[in-house]
């Protein structure tokens, strides 16, 4: 009995074997593939989609500060991206509801008169996991 215990102790303290190295590599592969797996299943809100009159017009990254002029049906709508937030800076529409919307980091901003729609992608999906539509 005593002898067996001693032998076990001896094996543990032996240097790393080929098998150990393989195990480490395998674990690394598994953990890395886990990252990729999670990224694919839970995409993050990283892009801004701009549509004009129902047609896709631009796709921009949310993490790069940009200002873009978008030609709508009555004039130019200026969309600004800054600090991962989006706003409509200038608009030719009469009521300016889109401008009053202010800075937004999820969902969408819509200018009805100029038919310009700005969607923040990915984060929209995250919101939709809880609520599918809003009445009112």
């Amino acid at each position: 009995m005593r002898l067996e215990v001693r032998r076990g102790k001896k094996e543990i303290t032996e240097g790393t074997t080929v098998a150990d190295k393989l195990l480490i590599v395998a674990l690394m592969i598994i953990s890395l593939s886990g990252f990729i797996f999670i990224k694919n299943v839970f995409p993050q809100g990283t892009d801004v989609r701009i549509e004009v009159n129902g047609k896709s017009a631009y796709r921009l990254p949310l993490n790069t500060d940009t200002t873009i002029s978008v030609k709508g049906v009555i004039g130019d709508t200026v969309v600004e991206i800054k600090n991962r937030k989006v706003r409509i800076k200038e608009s030719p529409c009469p009521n300016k509801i889109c401008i009053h919307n202010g800075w937004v980091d999820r969902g969408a901003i819509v200018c009805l008169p100029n038919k310009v729609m700005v969607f923040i992608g990915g984060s929209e999906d995250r919101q939709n996991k809880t609520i599918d539509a809003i009445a009112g």
Partner: protein
Amino acid sequence: MKEKLKVKSSKLEVQKIFLLLATCYLLLATVSSCVPQKEKVYRKSKILMDTLITISAVSDSGDKADLAIEKAFSEIEKLDKLLNFFSDKSELSEINKNAGKKAVKVSPETFEVIERAIYASEKTGGAFDVTIGTEITLWDFHNKVKPEDKAIRERLSLVNYKGILLNKRASSVYLNKKGMLIDLGGIAKGYAADKAVEVMKKKGIKSGLVSVAGDIKAFGLKPDGKPWKIGIKNPRAKNEDDEIMATIELTDMAISTSGDYERYFIIEGKRYHHILNPKTGYPADGCRSVSIIAKDGAITDPFSTGIFTLGAEKGMKLLEEMGLDGIIVDKDGKIHTTSNLRGKIEIRGSQGQKRNN
């Protein structure tokens, strides 16, 4: 001898590791296939009927969903051309232009919407009335202009749904007084949601969601087997966090909300909003918001407007009588729900609002 044994044992371990690896990947593969890849929600938004319309369809094929969604949009576009109050070419304009002159022959859709509008008028005792058009044209909510009291009073005699004469056989509509104007703004969106759902079902879509601004119709279940979750707007939201007042899960049902927070202006502390009381010509002041749940959008849309005008007390009574479901936020911010909704509605609550049912 000892060396050989070592090599053998490490070989065995390599095999073990590969087995472990294979199991892990198999596990990952199973988990990822559990995430619904077969059926997905396809969603598209368009600006039609002067508002934002979003249509979702559940399908195992993106092409199939896309086709159905496009068909539904073109149905709504068709209805918009028939029913638009502001377009000179719509059938509705034709009816309005010929008020007091002659009956106008219309398409079955236009006839049906007006027929259903009259039904809602009768049930609400005139609290919903599409002939409010003549008063609506007096108000300008963009430029915050309140019309003169005299002008409002003068036109009141032109507001009466009983002056709409329908001839089913001839499919014609006649307004019996010159100057009368039908505005279908309180029913066309709900009706359009119904029609869009019909079109998608015909295209083989078993589940989806159509939202025409605040008028929503849901059918079938989501890919995860759950009903659609609809949020009801808080009429006095202060920020993004309290935007939603309550949520409810719906399938094969429509919901519409009418609120005093959509188009309005405030003069001397008084709120003037777009829901006009047909009896007075002024904004109705009994409620902040009314949501109605029923099978058809052509019911929920006009009844949310009509019950808003009736006020909380009369409104609740009518809903219970008719067996309709509703959530009313009265003028003090108190929430009332019909008894059938208890346990089905999840109230998130918000500042200054108490529950009462």
